[in-house]
């Protein structure tokens, strides 16, 4: 089983080598010239105002939380999806499907609630 993953380890070695050497090569070969203001953050030609470590809109946080909720849902659906045909052949397809429907409905209600509360409208 674990043996199947060995070629991926080889690819990982190649990819890591490529990525690290890419970052290092221009660090070593690129030229360096100092100039006033070169290291300030780009703000359309003006001097940078303040720091970029800001407090930001809660929207981004809400999206992340919603993502986790629905990602776990799809994660739990994966084992069923891969075996739905076998359940049908064993004659328990309908029972298993109804259980999945119940599970998805609970999360569907959750989605409807968030939608109704305006959690999905970005401009609110």
């Amino acid at each position, binding site marked *: 089983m674990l043996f199947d993953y060995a*070629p991926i380890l*080889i690819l990982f070695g190649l990819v*890591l080598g490529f*990525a690290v050497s890419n970052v290092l090569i221009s660090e070593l070969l690129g030229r360096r010239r100092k100039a006033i203001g070169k290291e300030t*953050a*780009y703000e359309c030609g003006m001097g940078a105002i303040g720091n*970029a470590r800001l407090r930001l809109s809660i929207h981004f946080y809400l999206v*992340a939380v919603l*993502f986790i909720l629905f990602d776990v849902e799809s994660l739990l659906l994966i084992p069923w999806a891969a075996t739905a045909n076998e359940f049908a052949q064993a004659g328990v397809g309908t029972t298993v499907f109804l259980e999945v429907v119940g599970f998805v409905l609970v999360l569907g209600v959750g989605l409807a609630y968030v939608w109704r509360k305006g959690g999905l409208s*970005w401009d609110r």
Partner: protein
Amino acid sequence: MPLFFVWLLKAALIYGGMLGLAAGMTLAERKVSAWIQWRIGPNRVGPWGTLQPIADGIKFIFKEEVVPAGANPILFRLAPMMSAIPAMLTVAVIPFAGELSIGGVETTLSIADLDISALYVVAIGGLGVYGVILGGWSSNSKYSLMGGLRASAQMISYELSMILAMLSIVVMGGSLDLRVLTEAQAGGLHEWNIWSQPLAFLLFLIATFAETNRHPFDFAECEPELVGGFHTEYSSMKFALFFLGEYCAMIVMACLTVTFFLGGGEVPWWPSAPWFVQLGAFLAKTSIFLFLFIWVRWTLPRFRFDQLMGLGWKVMLPLALLNIFVTGGLASMGVYGS
């Protein structure tokens, strides 16, 4: 030939091929955009500008490294790698073609054959979002920060629809192995999943555009608003690494679309085609979607960010849930059973 060298050869060839294709895509993007806009495009370096990507690469290497003041020096250097590595790793499980023999060892034309390869692609591909958000945060620039946050919000939102669209294909094929899903579509044009799952195909295609931050969803680097997005402050090879990672992600997404919906390397009505014919068929199908990526970019206008989130959560997610509902219901009645 020992098994290790077979693995190394396959990994090196497929990975090298993907990097070459990514470099070719940067040229194709500029050439096709030039044709669409009635310009000539790059034509100075080599015949028809074909050596342009090499010239670009050499130029990137000798460009100056600029690390902005106040940037986190470690994360700033780590972020391009964290963005590119997952995109390049996902190519490992793409089943390009069937059996072949390398130096007496019977093997298949993919770097690794896992029985959960669909899950592997989703899991590793999802890691790319860390590089984007870390690159945006560590630069200590407001444009980078906003671009990184936007890109991550967009990528995780559309990942849901993508996984659910993929699941309906998994239900039909009854496996998480991409090779089994491909073989389930063998036999002819009418067996391709695009006919039985048109909604899933549409959702998956739209999600791939959003996942790779491509037009019309390229809010991560929406020039009039955010300058360069999360890589505003990046220069030299570090920028090139972000760029390459993006194109590799595009190539993998196009490969996945072909595997799920267009029968992968299967040649219609020729199930026992030799591996090089299958590889050719796979690449021909993939190039259709790669061209589509470019064509859409230079044809459609950009969305607005609230429209993008609205489309993802209010249209695509309910439709994807409905689709898996119907597919699962049919499967439970034994429609797809073999």
